[in-house]
């Protein structure tokens, strides 16, 4: 995003956060979006998180070859990596691909087929009606998905470690329960909140200002995913720097 685009993005967000015309209709739309973002992504997030946890355990076990390091460390490292980085960031990047492209295509298609013009002519605040419910659903459901991802990643680590024999069940459980710092959860939730905002607002912006036809909608969708992923990684660094 260059500065002009960033300015347009901020103005679009300002318009999106105007007072809704009819709260009841917006609430209905928010719940629909929550279902789409939350329930619709649960399966994908579950599979990815479980496998990442399992692979992480195997790789940590592979790297910890010294007899001086207790195997309980495998559980601790997997727990902290999952909570602080893997669950929020990998989930966000996966969701940027799945949800971001869908949001951008939906709004972009509405733009090129004049449906957004129709909303505006009716006197409806189109950014508010189309974007606000998605942002609210994103900032509420992405943290929920991240918490589920954390649990499944740690569980995946347990399964991967015990099934392969890389670590015993008792050592893994001792590892994940020793020296746990609850603040890491706070950091992860802050990240998830920020990522939820990016995943919904950036693609909405890309879709909202599409000009042209099907090709431009597809290009906007691709751009939305790329910009979202870069923004997620940049914000990941900034949030980590600020909070840890």
């Amino acid at each position, binding site marked *: 995003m260059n500065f002009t685009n960033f300015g347009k993005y901020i103005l679009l967000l300002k318009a999106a956060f*105007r007072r809704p015309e*009819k709260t009841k*209709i917006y609430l209905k739309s928010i719940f629909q979006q929550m279902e789409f973002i939350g329930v619709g992504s649960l399966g994908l997030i579950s599979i990815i998180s479980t496998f990442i946890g399992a692979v992480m355990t195997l790789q940590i076990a592979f790297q910890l070859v010294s007899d001086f390091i207790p195997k309980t460390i495998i559980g601790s490292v997997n727990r902290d990596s999952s909570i602080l980085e893997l669950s929020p960031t990998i989930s966000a990047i996966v969701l940027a691909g799945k949800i971001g492209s869908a949001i951008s295509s939906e709004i972009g298609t509405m733009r090129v*087929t004049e449906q957004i013009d*129709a909303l*505006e*002519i*009716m*006197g409806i605040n189109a950014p508010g009606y189309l974007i606000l419910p998605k942002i609210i659903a994103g900032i509420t459901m992405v943290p929920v998905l991240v918490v589920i991802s954390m649990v499944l990643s740690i569980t995946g680590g347990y399964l991967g470690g015990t099934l392969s024999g890389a670590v015993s069940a008792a050592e893994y459980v001792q590892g994940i329960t020793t020296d746990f710092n609850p603040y890491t959860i706070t950091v992860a939730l802050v990240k998830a909140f920020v990522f939820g905002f990016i995943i919904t607002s950036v693609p909405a912006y890309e879709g909202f200002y599409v000009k042209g036809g099907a090709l431009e909608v597809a290009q906007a969708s691709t751009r939305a995913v790329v910009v979202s992923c870069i923004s997620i990684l940049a914000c990941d660094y900034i949030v980590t720097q600020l909070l840890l």
Partner: protein
Amino acid sequence: MIEIKDIHKSFGDNEVLKGISGKFEEGVTNLIIGGSGSGKTTLLKCMIGLHQPEKGSVLYDGREFTQLNFEERIEIRKEIGMLFQGSALFDSMTVEENIMFPLNMFTDQARSEKLDRVNFCLERVNLPDKNKLFPAELSGGMKKRVGIARAIAMNPKYLFCDEPNSGLDPKTSIVIDELIKEITEEYKTTTIVVTHDMNSVMGIGDYIIFLHEGKKFWEGSNKEIAKTDIEELNDFVFASRFMKAAKGKF
């Protein structure tokens, strides 16, 4: 009544509208005609606020639209109904939900009242019992009629139609034209139709503005248009062999 005064609009170096003025009265069908690229859709978009003109004013019954803030514009837009070239129906909603949408947004009516209004609008456009269909299940002509039904759902004072006949067969075009004319006369709306369809021009054009290269070249009624000597207008109106042959009969 809608009045436009000295409307100028450019896109980069391309000056599309070069000072267009006109008065569109209520209860009559006002047409904006012109060839492709003459600026008629741009003029329409300037009038409804989708484009901001660089210069000039648009007055809705004396209210200066271009100078209004967001909230004030919304109040005028609630009085506007619009039929888009591609109908612009919301694809995720049924016909009933499309027509009910503005009612849901801006009225506190009970669902039964809104449903009555939806059914009335659908009957008005000769599409009863199509409530539960989705736009993808409708033909082009049916989509246009649903678009009209949605446009009149809120009893608009101003009705805009952007190329209502594009992509339709001649018979369906006449049905749509007649519907627009009937609604205009029945509800005394200020109706503005952007078209380059000559059947519409000759059939429903009570007041016509002809645009050529971003300027207003001519204005008058469909009765006067056949008698004009302006070369650019004659080239546009009587472009086809059929129209040339029929010229003397209008």
